[in-house]
């Protein structure tokens, strides 16, 4: 009205564009923080790094109120059903950031109880490398999520229906190779794991 002359009389756009524009600037993260990455996540939300500049500062601890799950830290096999339940409880549309080396690949924790990447069990949109990642890297991930929403989002979230197949690593069958299924380390005296170890001729140690 008052700015008649500056703007054209009407604009033509797509509803998808408008929905994406509003959604991407109003992300509500669900902080699924299980380890030290959670500390960086808190730093990202605090005033120095200030994730609020990108419209995603409204962290809620109920999955019902969130649309961006940030898995920050290692996930053990006892936590996988909890993580999946929280993911299923979040309303659509929703996205997931796998923050840090442990959540993305297991990191250094290649042990019997640690999941080697959460993308084997829930869909992940953006991975953040680092151990732990700097807050700037998490902000970069949020910006990537925003770009992904703007490019692929639809107002009725129909783009998710196309993602009906498994998106994780394909190496599930290569879980334990025969040479990796190691058992007791042979040499307790030097604490090494030599495979061609001759034990029989060693003098027996006296039992303490």
């Amino acid at each position: 009205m008052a700015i008649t002359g500056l703007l054209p009389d009407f604009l033509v756009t797509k509803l998808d564009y408008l929905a994406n524009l509003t959604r991407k600037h109003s992300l509500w993260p669900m902080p699924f923080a299980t380890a030290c990455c959670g500390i960086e996540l808190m730093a990202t939300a605090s005033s120095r790094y200030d994730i609020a500049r990108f419209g995603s500062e409204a962290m809620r601890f109920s999955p019902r109120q969130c649309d961006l799950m940030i898995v920050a830290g290692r996930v053990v096999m006892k936590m996988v059903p909890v993580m999946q339940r929280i993911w299923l409880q979040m309303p659509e549309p929703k996205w997931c950031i796998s923050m840090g080396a442990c959540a993305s690949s297991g990191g250094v924790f290649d042990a019997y109880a640690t999941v080697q990447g959460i993308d084997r069990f829930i869909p992940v949109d953006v991975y953040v490398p680092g151990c732990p990642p700097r807050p700037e890297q998490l902000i970069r991930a949020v910006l990537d999520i925003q770009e992904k929403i703007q490019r692929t989002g639809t107002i009725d979230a129909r783009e998710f229906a196309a993602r009906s197949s498994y998106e994780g690593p394909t190496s599930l069958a290569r879980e334990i190779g025969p040479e990796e299924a190691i058992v007791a380390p042979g040499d307790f005296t030097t604490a090494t794991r030599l495979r061609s170890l001759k034990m029989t001729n060693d003098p027996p140690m006296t039992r303490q």
Partner: protein
Amino acid sequence: MAAYLDTLTARFPGAFTTSEFRGDRRVIVAADKAPAVLLGLLRCLKEECGFDFLCDVAGVDYLNYPGAADRYGVVYALTNTTTGGRVFVKAFANDPDPVLPSAVPLWQGADWLEREVYDMYGVRFDGHPDLRRILMPSEFTAYPLRKDYPLRGLGERHNFPTITRAES
């Protein structure tokens, strides 16, 4: 020779051996004697020798250990709260059914400690009021700290359903 060792020798002759490491005395009970002797020995240490505090219960797997005679060791770390003296009781158990008497009748604090040893090594404790897994999920079937268990497990860590984006 400490006075409590005289008491133990008089009460349980031939049931244990001792050794010392950096000033800490160890009382070692072999697997063939442990089920009958261990609880009485711990009770004697607690009630007659003043070792009234159970610091820790830990498990060890001596598979392929040079010179080891028995497989599973369970270490009870006892402290005398009056003198500050310590003694370590190491009892052994063997396959196929490693079982030791529970120390819960003596120390209530042994409850979770023995559950952890059971969870990690599969050593059962006879007389334990609630012998369940404490760290691993209850559907876990292996004992992960045994030396013949692979470091990366037997695939339990990935035995979960996958949720795809379309169905969530």
